[in-house]
């Protein structure tokens, strides 16, 4: 199966994607590669809105019937919103990982930029080498 790696997003080695929104917020989700590796998702555990996250901190869990995976926040900041649709329909992550399957939005405030994230090309290369 071919895996989508949209050009306009940034990525981590732990298979999260990051989308820059306005007002210093970023949206976070898991990549197409990650959702395919996990299989049908059945449960998502997400942080409370308002929680302060450090970059690289485990902040959510996605579960399929055969695997469970921690989600590490790619950036530091405060959880501004979470995708509560996923509580009822976690399969949105399978069907639309970069859209309706988003996990949460983090307010970075004036925090400085974190370590460099991967570009789409870098991430695609990383997945190819690791796999």
């Amino acid at each position, binding site marked *: 199966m071919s895996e989508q790696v949209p050009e306009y997003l940034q990525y981590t080695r732990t298979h999260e994607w990051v989308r820059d929104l306005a007002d210093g917020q970023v949206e976070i989700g898991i990549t197409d590669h990650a959702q395919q590796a996990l299989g049908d998702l*059945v449960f998502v555990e997400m942080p409370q809105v308002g929680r302060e996250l450090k970059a690289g901190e485990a902040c959510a869990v996605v579960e399929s*019937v055969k695997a469970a995976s921690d989600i590490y926040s790619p950036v530091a900041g405060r959880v501004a919103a979470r995708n509560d649709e996923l509580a009822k329909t976690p399969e949105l992550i399978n069907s639309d990982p970069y859209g309706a399957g988003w996990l949460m939005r983090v307010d970075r405030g004036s925090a400085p930029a974190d370590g460099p994230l991967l570009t789409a090309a870098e991430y695609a290369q990383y997945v190819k080498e690791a796999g």
Partner: protein
Amino acid sequence: MSEPGLREPLIFDLSKPGRGAASQFPPAPDGAEARRTVEIPQRLRRASRPRLPEVSELQAVRHFTRLSHLNFSIDSHFYPLGSCTMKYNPKACNTYAMLPEFLSRHPLAPEPQGFLACMFELQEMLKEITGMQGVSLSPMAGAQGEFAGVAMIRAYHRARNDTARTEIIVPQAAHGTNPATATMCGCTVKEIPCDRNGGIDLAALEAVAGPATAGIMLTNPSTLGVFEHRIAEVARIVHQAGGLLYYDGANLNAILGKVRPGDMGFDVIHMNLHKTFSTPHGGGGPGSGAVGVGPRLLPYLPIPLVGCRDGRYRWLTERELPSSIGRLSGFMGNAGVNLRAYVYMRMLGRQGMVRVSEFAALNANYLMKRLTAAGYEAAYPARRASHEFIITLRNESRLFEVTAMDVAKRLLDFGVHAPTTYFPLLVPECLLIEPTETETKEELDHFCDAMSEIRREMEREPEKLRSAPHTMPVRRLDDVRAVKQLDIAWKPGR
């Protein structure tokens, strides 16, 4: 068309109000007796009867007998389930553990000398086999034995005021209970990788071992089915860093009577009596996770254990072992399981014990040879199999688009229980195969023939594998639905 139903209905659907196994009921209290009862106030009583089934004795017997027919078991099928040691469970072990005097003994009644003699001798035999100095039979399963082991390691460091040691080193390929146990004991887990030949990456070990190391948890042979021959070096590194070595006895069957964990440098071990010493798996338990320790950990053994003084056996408790990590069970652990292991070990004796590992190795190496001759790829072809070995289907999965799970499910149609699949996770599309010493050459040959046939099917009709099994009471089950539409208890009126 009506919806297909269960092969055997739920016991609740056999129920009819007013029916029952009446000869099993105690008599209803008569008036005089009823008056003797202290009045129980209404507020503490149940408002309506629990929804338990109401069936005749024959209905119950038939229902559960029919359910039993839906299972594979050692008594009925070859069961080469890697890391589980599914060997024959001799009937004598059950028969003699279920003698009425043993069964009727209350755990708090005066200490029964005959039973305790068996437990004491079992402790002694386990000490001899493992090269350890003390054994406690109180942990109730392998995971509880692991817990006891790591808790003892922590107690040891704490007693020396060495409180910074909170890290447990675990190889990547370890059984999931190892890291889970470390967490339960309040430790953090440091995973180290394995090298190309299935051994421990010694450089990685040296890099993580240090002043925070509480210990390392290892199986040897490893979960990859190969013996870590540099174990003395591993022990040296960990001991020099100030940590202790924990032996996970999951694979003890491979080395029984050949090498003793104590001689390899381990400080503590748990044994799965339900694997190596042939007590039944019972559809998921009970097990027994006896622990053995070297001199440093003796004071911390979990209680109770059996002592002997002046020819009299007694339970040793907090009084005799004040530094013990404590109690793990309400009474004395899985006493009846321990008794079955005792009977088994007495029947094997000194020579029989060594034969276990010898013939387990013979069967495993024979299977590995035959399967590779049939075209399957061994994960570690340059190594001897221990009592088990790994086949990887990474090529087949690419060529024929079939998975290890497909092969496992198809084997069921050949009357063979599937090997362990997808463990260890390190090896892609793997089958972990453990035949045990109690299987005949004919049974092994039948298995190889089935695997050869499945290989032919892969090439010619892979769909037959993908849709397997075809002959079981059910086809593959919808695991996603099982979670999403959670149905874990029968409810009336459905």
